């Protein structure tokens, strides 16, 4: 009997989740298929304009920004994990790290800086360095913006690696570095997966800072690319919606792929306390 109730409740919960989260997403898809005049109406499309997806994909306004986003995200995310892992490990596990709490709080504070407050000066800085509107400039900026966040998340996951494993390896004479690479990282793979995908999504959906530090197709990412579908005189929201859906697909794919690691998790391997 209990099992039946559980299944029913689970089903209802899933339905709610799907409606709430997927609703606006579904609506976006609907808008992308409607004729432009019906964008604001609440009915189903009178005709389904699937060819709009071809049109948007082939449009020369969108694909360059899409590629830019790819370049930026795939360059920045590994860079962030690379920079953040040692720092996170140092904060999480180095007992002899005297200023540990201070550094921790420092990174936390830096992470909390609202981007809108510092975007303006970053523009000045990049212009001064000649990196305005270039992909390296964007990669540099994003790395700086999201590394504290990655350090944070990772240090938390690193701390949940049980100390015995570490101590065992330590006693066998391994150096800190090799403990990091051979023991900690593989064990906290779900944590790293979560951090990777979070960073990827944050980078992929960043708009404000991207807007300030880019100007042309050299470096404009896809968040801005979706807004370039100006028709004769106005923004064509049906095309914008199409572009937005297309822009979401890479994230969907990556989320699905890494969800395996998140869900599988640290099964069975860890004994605590």
């Amino acid at each position, binding site marked *: 009997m209990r099992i039946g109730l559980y299944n029913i409740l689970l089903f209802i919960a899933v339905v709610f989740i799907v409606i709430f989260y997927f609703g606006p997403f579904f609506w976006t898809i609907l808008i992308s298929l409607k004729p432009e005049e019906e964008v604001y109406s609440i009915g189903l499309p009178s005709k389904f304009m699937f060819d709009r997806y071809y049109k948007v994909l082939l449009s020369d306004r969108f694909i360059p920004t899409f590629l830019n986003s790819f370049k930026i995200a795939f360059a920045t995310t590994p860079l962030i994990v690379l920079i953040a892992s040692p720092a996170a490990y140092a904060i999480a596990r180095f007992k002899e790290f005297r200023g540990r709490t201070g550094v921790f709080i420092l990174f936390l504070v830096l992470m909390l800086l609202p981007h*809108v407050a510092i975007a303006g000066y970053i523009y000045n800085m990049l212009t001064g360095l000649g990196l305005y509107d270039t992909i390296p400039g964007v990669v540099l900026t994003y790395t700086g913006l999201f590394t504290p966040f990655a350090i944070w998340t990772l240090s938390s996951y690193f701390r949940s690696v049980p100390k015995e494993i570490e101590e065992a390896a330590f006693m066998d004479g391994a150096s800190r570095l090799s403990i990091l690479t051979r023991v900690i990282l593989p064990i906290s793979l779900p944590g790293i997966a979560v951090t990777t995908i979070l960073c990827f999504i944050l980078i992929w959906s960043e708009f404000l800072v991207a807007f300030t530090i880019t100007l042309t197709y050299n470096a404009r990412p896809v968040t801005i690319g979706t807004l370039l579908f100006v028709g004769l005189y106005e923004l064509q929201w049906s095309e914008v919606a199409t572009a937005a859906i297309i822009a979401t697909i890479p994230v969907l794919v990556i989320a699905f792929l890494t969800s395996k690691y998140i869900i599988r998790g640290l099964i069975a391997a860890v004994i605590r306390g």
Partner: protein
Amino acid sequence: MRKLYSILTPFFYCLPAFIITFFILLVPLLNTLYRSFLKIRIGSTEILGFIGLGNYINIIDDTAFRVSFLNSLILGFAGALPAVLVALFVASVCNQQFRGNRIILSLIVAAWAIPPIVAGRVWKILLLPNGLVSTVGSYLGLCQRSYSILGDPSVALISVIIASIWKFSPFATLILLGGMRTVPPELYEAAKIDGATFYKTFRYITLPLIARYFNIAVLFVSMYIAATVDLVYALTGGGPGYATEILASYTYKVYFLQQDFGRGSATSIILILWALISMGPLIYFISKQMFGRE
């Protein structure tokens, strides 16, 4: 030498992180602080003079600012906490073993990944008079079909809160889910053998073990809700009047629309201070949790 090495090593580990964040975050922060005390010509970076607290006084005088401050507080409490609770709910659902839980997770993440401007616009379309939400509401007898949800100051704020929850809880869901996955399954098995119900398992096993992640999730979500301009802007533009203005969108307005970098810097500093102060307690809790047990 050995001792020096062991003290310095952690700093070396943090060095790349230090460098990049110093460059991108700390220097702009200090520069913004500096510029907040100056009068700067509108539209450019030309400095006109030092006016001390003049910018700050000008801003605090503005009703729109005071309302945006209040709204940020409201959004922080009424938005961040429910967002994380919703995330907790969702994460525990995804934590269950059932077919398709990966698909659900991907869907939720996809919802999050839609560029915020487009998401805001879609929500706006749904919330327009004669739009989907008001039509459904009229069927349920809650309001007229042509009711302007976004035109009513208090209701507009509620819709901003709901849209924010929608946008930011996936973030928390992922964090919480990752945390849930660090709970060793033996504990669940043992509980099941002992005959514990789902509720008891959740309350006594899952919750305590993911408490750390819960705090982090709340922190992150509050920070993102406070800092996100795009969603509010696309949804209401800060309107009606200034009813849905939050500190972040107010900063954006002064900095990017009015192009007043002096006052904009002052607003930025206030925003940063507010963020730090409001999250201070949480920061304290988290660092205690982080380092307290050792």
